[in-house]
């Protein structure tokens, strides 16, 4: 028996040998003829979080995907034949530890990473400003990127907003999406384009309970109750005008905290009321597994991506779902919310700055963004993203939201926000969901007190 099982296991291993990665023979440039740009020489080491280097199969469509290695061979290598690019592929898991080590030891010149990591590295002096390179390079137009993330994000700009250290490459999608079918079942009018927290709460309350048509349990609203960056909380602070703090991340010890203001009380009151409406699992980010799909039972999802619906459309051409799940702007006054962006950055001690800049510039260019969108469904960061599929309304909405985005001190780049405010707010949500919400004013007074002590300790 043991021998047979061993034989079976060995055969499974042998018969599932990796397919060799060979050239796809596909066009990656959209028909554009690639010509040599420069004979500049150099070697650039690029550390990429999460990119796929080899050709593979798109799990959504079953089509071949072109890995970055082939893409670079067909494009950059022809444009800059004397620049050698070494690509290091790093999975997102533990990427911060790996890239931090690479920056400290001088093992990487250009990095693609998470926005929060980039911001921290910049503050730690591990990254280089790009302003001089941008100024010198007439072929680079910073105006092609969405203003909200190019000029108003801690992931690309220094804490005081005066220096540019990152170029946005991939956008995070966070928007309000509602289920038109459930709205119709309950006889509730759809959300307006810039639905306020009050409108969302009012409509969500109406749609929590037994669906009048199907008899199934429905939930009015959903958001991730244990979000590591508190994105929904950020959107609410924008909506209610609760700034939370004044000052600059360049001088964190001088930040003036305003965490117990009447506006912040409104934010917490909203969370307290809304916490009664989602499925119980929302406090651990569970319960919305079917949102965006046929079996959905949640009317409104905050900070949602539309990914599940779009996946179904791409895989099965399911237009019904696409019509059913409608995105609107986020909750801020202009429709803004917290916008995540993953940039390309350059190491402070990059070996070959000029060659590194050419690589960085190329990897954030519209051509590369088209390539990453088409092959890996990454959301672009440029204004004229005309390659986005006409049906992909979620990406278009994300671009609209990003365009009006701006950075505030309630942001993951703020150390106290990440270490104390987010866990405290998530704890509050958890207690509110079980009907044991603490006294809001007292909760905020304590948070304010902690924040002031934190700042005082830094002085």
């Amino acid at each position, binding site marked *: 028996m*043991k021998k047979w*099982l*061993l034989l079976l*296991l*060995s055969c*499974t*291993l042998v018969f*599932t*040998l*990796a*397919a060799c990665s060979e050239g796809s023979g596909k066009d990656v440039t959209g028909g554009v003829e690639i010509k040599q740009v420069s004979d500049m020489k150099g070697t650039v080491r690029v550390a990429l*979080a*999460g990119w*796929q*280097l*080899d*050709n*593979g*199969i798109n*799990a*959504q469509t*079953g089509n071949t*995907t072109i890995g970055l290695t082939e893409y670079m061979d067909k494009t950059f290598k022809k444009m800059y034949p004397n620049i050698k690019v070494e690509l*290091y*592929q*790093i*999975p*997102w*898991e*533990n990427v911060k*530890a*790996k890239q*931090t*080590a690479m920056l*400290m*030891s001088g*093992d990487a010149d250009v990095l693609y990473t*998470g926005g929060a990591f980039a911001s921290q590295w910049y503050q730690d002096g591990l990254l280089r400003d790009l302003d001089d390179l941008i100024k010198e390079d007439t072929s680079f137009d910073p105006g092609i990127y969405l203003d909200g993330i190019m000029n108003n994000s801690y992931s690309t700009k220094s804490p005081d907003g005066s220096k540019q250290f990152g170029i946005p490459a*991939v956008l*995070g999608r966070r928007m309000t999406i509602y289920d038109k079918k459930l709205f119709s079942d309950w006889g509730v009018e759809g959300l307006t384009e810039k639905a306020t927290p009050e409108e969302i709460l009012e409509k969500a309350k109406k749609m929590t309970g037994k669906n009048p048509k199907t008899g199934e349990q429905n939930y009015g609203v959903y958001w991730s109750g244990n979000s590591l960056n508190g994105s929904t909380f950020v959107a609410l602070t924008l909506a209610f005008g609760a700034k939370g703090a004044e000052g600059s991340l360049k001088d964190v010890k001088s930040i003036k905290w305003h965490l117990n203001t009447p506006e912040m009380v409104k934010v917490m009151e909203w969370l307290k009321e809304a916490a009664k409406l989602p499925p119980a699992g929302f406090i651990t980010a569970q319960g919305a*597994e*079917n949102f965006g*799909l046929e079996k959905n039972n949640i009317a409104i999802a905050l900070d949602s*991506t539309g*990914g*599940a619906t779009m*996946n*179904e459309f791409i*895989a099965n051409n399911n237009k019904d779902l696409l019509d059913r799940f409608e995105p609107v702007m986020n909750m801020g006054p202009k429709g803004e919310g917290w916008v*995540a962006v*993953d940039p390309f950055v350059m190491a402070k001690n990059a070996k070959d700055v000029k060659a590194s800049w050419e690589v960085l510039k190329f990897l954030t260019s519209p051509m590369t963004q088209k390539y990453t969108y088409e092959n*890996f*469904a*990454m959301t672009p960061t440029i204004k004229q993203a005309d390659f986005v599929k006409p049906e992909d309304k979620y990406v278009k909405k994300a671009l609209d939201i990003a365009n009006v985005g701006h950075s505030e001190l309630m942001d993951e780049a703020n150390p106290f926000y990440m270490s104390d405010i987010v866990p405290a707010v998530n704890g509050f949500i958890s207690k509110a969901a079980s009907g044991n919400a603490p006294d809001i004013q007292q909760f905020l007074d304590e948070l304010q007190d902690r924040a002031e002590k934190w700042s005082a300790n830094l002085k």
Partner: protein
Amino acid sequence: MIQTADSKALRRKKIPVSQWILAIVLFLGSFIMIVPFLWMLVTSFDWGARLNITFPPKIWPEEPSIRTYEVAFTNIKMFRYIINSIIVSAGVIVVSSLSALLSGYALSKLRFKGASLVLLLALSTMMIPFEMTMIPQYLLFSKLGLLDNYLAFYLPALNYAFGTFLAKAFFDQLPSSLREAAILDGAGEFTVFGRVYLPLCTPIIATMIILLFLGVWNEMLWPLLVLKNAAKYTIQIGLAMFTYNNGINQQPSIIMAATAVSLIPVVVVYMFLQRYIIESIALSGIKQ
């Protein structure tokens, strides 16, 4: 017929209620342990679950297919990563076991001055969390030019303090008179170790192989830090690569397929060494 029925009834009577309760509890325990594994296998063959995981879980795939395995093996060099993991594991096992056995033997039988202090110092290195030492360790290997080199696994493996402790405790149980007799017969220290004591160490060697193999096979952070060239990556890094777009885009059935394949070597090792598994837990007090 009557006789058969009677004997069946008799047999039923012989099983006490406590045994039934124990059997039910054990069955439930086994069921709870095996359900995630079965769910993984079922999902790994479900092409329909490649984009969104089916919830609640199903006992049969919605779209049964082995294409999930094809995607897993095409997108990531799974086979190469498994081979890499085997190379790393084998090297670490050899280096660590040998180092632990030799040091354990020395501490137990050679009785030199300061032996207890040496053991204490070695054990104290286990109190320092890896997260504290990983960046300095990385910088050291970077300066030595040993990044992207499997020596970055084998050299730290020389310090296997827990193995030293285990081996010393094991050697303590073996009579010192064996060494004395061999020395009287003219044997050198390495001959005593290799010819007299080592053949008696099968249980402790098996224990160390199991503990080291599972530890190294599942290791993620250190390989990720020291390896740069994707061709040298280990299987755990390979599995982590199935998460795209800042962790947002998951492909459940593809990840499950890759995970199922990655478990094959573990199952093979388990089958070869299963009679030592319980013994290793008893000897070391560790269940991995």
